[in-house]
């Protein structure tokens, strides 16, 4: 009888009761805070906060996409900034040709076209590179994802038309009917809603049959094969989905910065995304969002003190990896259990 009860309880996860745990409250406060703080600040004459929050939310989307493969799938990609860059250039390049001619086929300010292009190219890049990277394991996987990332970096540097090293200014933002992205509030709303949608998608994914497979393949692919899964094609699919979402975040980033350069996809940018995932809590849905908040705040505070703010930054990351299992979200969930 006791067995039966425990079974039934656990068949109702993610329900309303789970909202009122430490984790549930923290998640709620985080999301409501992200919705309200910049908006209120903006309308009370502090536009600085909406700028910083827009960047935060875009990076959070990228980190959530990385969490899908890194946290849930155990695929430690050190090249995710490439997808951000691809997404940003998928906005910048069509806009450039729409302004200066040539390449009529892709010349466009249309947002649906640009964002669609960002997702498609990022997914294709993920498919091709993932097919190769996923044949390797462990440190090799990390190194080869990084190598592919750097390849994109140098490819863009070498294209003079788009400014090479110096980058490219986006004169006109993506055009959507009834949505003016040069309005900071409108842009922020788009980013924030995108974050919510992406979180929901990832939530559904990781709890689906597909999600169970990629979580099983994390660290025990041999077992997966033995019970009858071709782990490789599921991992590759996860990698493509992750790349596509990150490409979408890149399209938002291009619209936010209106200046794109290869520097956006440097390996250190990939490292920052990993930082967000690990510090925030890998394999926790909102972990990367907490991580993005911590990253942005630390960056703001530390860079005020010293030019070499990456050093204390790195130290914090190492300490958190060594001592805080599961990052910020992991800490919160343990706090919740102690209370309950």
């Amino acid at each position, binding site marked *: 009888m*006791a*067995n039966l009860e*425990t*079974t039934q309880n*656990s*068949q109702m*996860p993610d329900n309303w009761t789970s909202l009122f745990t430490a984790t549930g409250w923290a998640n709620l406060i985080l999301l409501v805070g992200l919705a309200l703080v910049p908006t209120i600040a903006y309308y009370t004459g502090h536009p600085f906060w909406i700028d910083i929050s827009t960047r935060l939310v875009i990076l959070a989307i990228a980190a959530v996409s990385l969490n899908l493969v890194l946290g849930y799938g155990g695929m430690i990609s050190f090249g995710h900034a490439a997808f951000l860059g691809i997404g940003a250039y998928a906005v910048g390049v069509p806009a450039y040709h729409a302004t200066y001619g040539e390449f009529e086929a892709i010349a466009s300010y249309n947002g649906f076209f640009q964002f669609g292009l960002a997702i498609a190219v990022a997914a294709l890049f993920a498919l091709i590179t993932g097919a190769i990277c996923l044949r390797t394991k462990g440190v090799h996987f990390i190194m080869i994802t990084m190598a592919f990332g750097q390849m994109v970096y140098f490819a863009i540097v070498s294209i003079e038309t788009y400014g090479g090293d110096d980058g490219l200014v986006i004169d006109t933002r993506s055009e959507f009917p009834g949505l003016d992205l040069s309005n900071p509030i409108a842009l922020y709303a788009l980013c924030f809603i995108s974050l919510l949608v992406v979180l929901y998608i990832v939530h*559904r*994914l990781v*709890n*689906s*049959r*597909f*999600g*169970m*497979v990629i*979580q*099983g393949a994390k660290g*025990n692919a*041999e*077992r*997966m*094969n*033995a*019970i*009858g*899964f*071709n*782990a490789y094609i*599921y991992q590759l*699919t996860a990698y493509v989905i992750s790349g596509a979402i990150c490409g979408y975040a890149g399209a938002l980033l291009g619209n936010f910065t209106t200046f794109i350069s290869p520097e956006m996809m440097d390996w250190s940018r990939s490292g920052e995304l990993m930082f967000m995932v690990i510090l925030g809590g890998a394999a926790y849905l909102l972990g990367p969002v907490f991580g993005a908040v911590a990253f942005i705040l630390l960056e703001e505070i530390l860079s005020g003190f010293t030019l070499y703010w990456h050093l204390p930054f790195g130290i914090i990351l190492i300490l958190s990896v060594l001592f805080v299992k599961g990052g910020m979200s992991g800490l919160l969930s343990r706090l919740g259990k102690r209370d309950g």
Partner: protein
Amino acid sequence: MAEPILSIQGLHKSFGGVTATDNVHLDVLDGETHAVIGPNGAGKTTLISQLSGALKPDAGRILFEGNNIVGQPAHKRSHIGLARSFQITSVFMEMTVLDNVALAVQAHDGHSFRFWTPARASKNLTDPAMACLKQVGLESRANDTASVMSHGERRQLEIAMALATKPKLLLLDEPMAGMGPDESARMVETLKSLSGKTMLLVEHDMDAVFALADRISVLVYGQVIATGTPDEVRADENVRHAYLGEAA
């Protein structure tokens, strides 16, 4: 008894200078429990791995229900009815016991490109998974995380995962490895309760082997030196000399 379900013919595998499988011929008959015994390093795990598809043999054939399966990847072999357990416990540590088994059920319930519906809510997965847990006596631990289970319980879980794939032939690599006497006895009971399942059972524990096996093959330095009923093997001069004698 019937036709061999598995027929290993002239199998060879070496690692550098070490010959781990040396011209092995071995038949497993439908319905029998066939034990493979042999000293440490005899090549028992290497043999299982070649059968399951984790390792590729250098030469020889493996006929499963008459078809040569050498060259088929491990996941395909699971779908034609081969299931293995591992000498070194291999379960999904971060998942619950039920999820571990449900995942094995899922592998045999169509493709898993299903991205939206929660897997844990699917009775098609949890009901058969619970049934397998009952078979090994773990149903009360269904919602515990695998990592908090005892060693013996995890070994039982491995068996449940193998059963969940509805195998025609179970390949068990030392299911009693590292167990105390009580746990071993429980495992023997579990395996006995599967009577009718065809099994290739690698085991060091002689009591278990003699309690369970219909036939025994003795592997020494990669070679099968004897095959027969438990009594025949016990009486075999070569075996006494090469193996049982050493142990006694």
